[in-house]
């Protein structure tokens, strides 16, 4: 019974599966974001400002999210797959931030250490 309800719920998700047109639109969006990222690298005023690093990280995260949700179909797939990817990704992210704090890199950047 549980199998059937899971499959039925999943079939509902598939009705919203991306189309070919959506895939092309996503490719254009990814290209535009990449072009903006590279342009920012070559604009001295942007590159030198405090918003540069946050803006780069946000744009990168948006590209990451778009590919995972639409090209990897995680938005439409079973929630178990989201857990299997999201859990380790969270651990990986926390490990990265933790290590950067441990080696003072992030703490210095955020002005927490003199």
């Amino acid at each position, binding site marked *: 019974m*549980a*199998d*059937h309800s*899971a*499959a039925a719920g*999943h*079939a509902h998700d*598939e*009705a919203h*599966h*991306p*189309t*070919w*047109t*959506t*895939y*092309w639109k*996503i*490719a254009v969006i*990814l*290209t535009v974001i*990449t072009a903006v*990222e*590279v342009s*920012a*690298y*070559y604009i001295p005023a942007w*590159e030198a400002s405090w918003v*540069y*690093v946050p803006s*780069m*990280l946000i*744009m*990168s995260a948006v*590209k*990451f999210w778009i*590919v*995972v949700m639409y*090209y*990897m*179909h995680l938005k439409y*797939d*079973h929630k*178990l*797959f989201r857990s*299997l*990817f999201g*859990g*380790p*990704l969270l*651990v*990986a*992210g926390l*490990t*990265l931030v933790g*290590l*950067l704090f441990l*080696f003072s*890199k992030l703490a210095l950047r955020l002005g927490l250490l003199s």
Partner: protein
Amino acid sequence: MTATTAPTTAAHGDGHAHGGGHHTSLGLDNRKVAIWTFIGSECMLFASLISTYLIYKGKSPEGPFPHDVWTSPTTGEVFKPILNIPVTSASTFVLLMSSLAMVLALAAVQNRDLPKHTAWERILGSSKIWLWATCLLGIAFLGCQAYEFTSFVHEGLTMRTNLFGSSFFTLTGFHGAHVTAGVLWLFTLLAIDYKRGLKPSDALLVDICALYWHFVDVVWIAIFTLIYLIK
């Protein structure tokens, strides 16, 4: 262009098992659960490699450096910033387009049985075209990486030169090895396609390979920003 939505349940790892797969208690194909578990473990592998690079960043006493000019105190030789952003930007674009080709290959296999009326629909519905496109774009990315590595060595940066060289070559080399494995995997799908044709019931085979390929792409999205664009 027809915006068709006719995905098969096989591509999602539920419903009936195809090609020897087994169901989990949730009704999901075990191969799809396995690839997502593998991708999860790969997240942690690449996080450790990226962490290592970031921790060692700026700690090399001697150049060449990624974004700064360095003059050797012993020889007086001047080394330019070593990262080549234009080439890497081009290879990033190539990898993003390979992800588009891969997802179109999957859609072509899923929609194989649908009628194709126009030439554009026949192109969109050809899994061979899109699998070849993905392979060639992957090879082009590897070519860019080979060019980059070769030019670095010629400019005096090897794995043993400094901390930057060690962590950079390890991180990007591991990623390149993953791309190489992905290209080989794609060739096996092409071989099946030429031998007997990939049918909608084979969509899960393509989907699993596609998930791996897109993961390699998202890892590069992170590497490109953290290593190349942020100084």
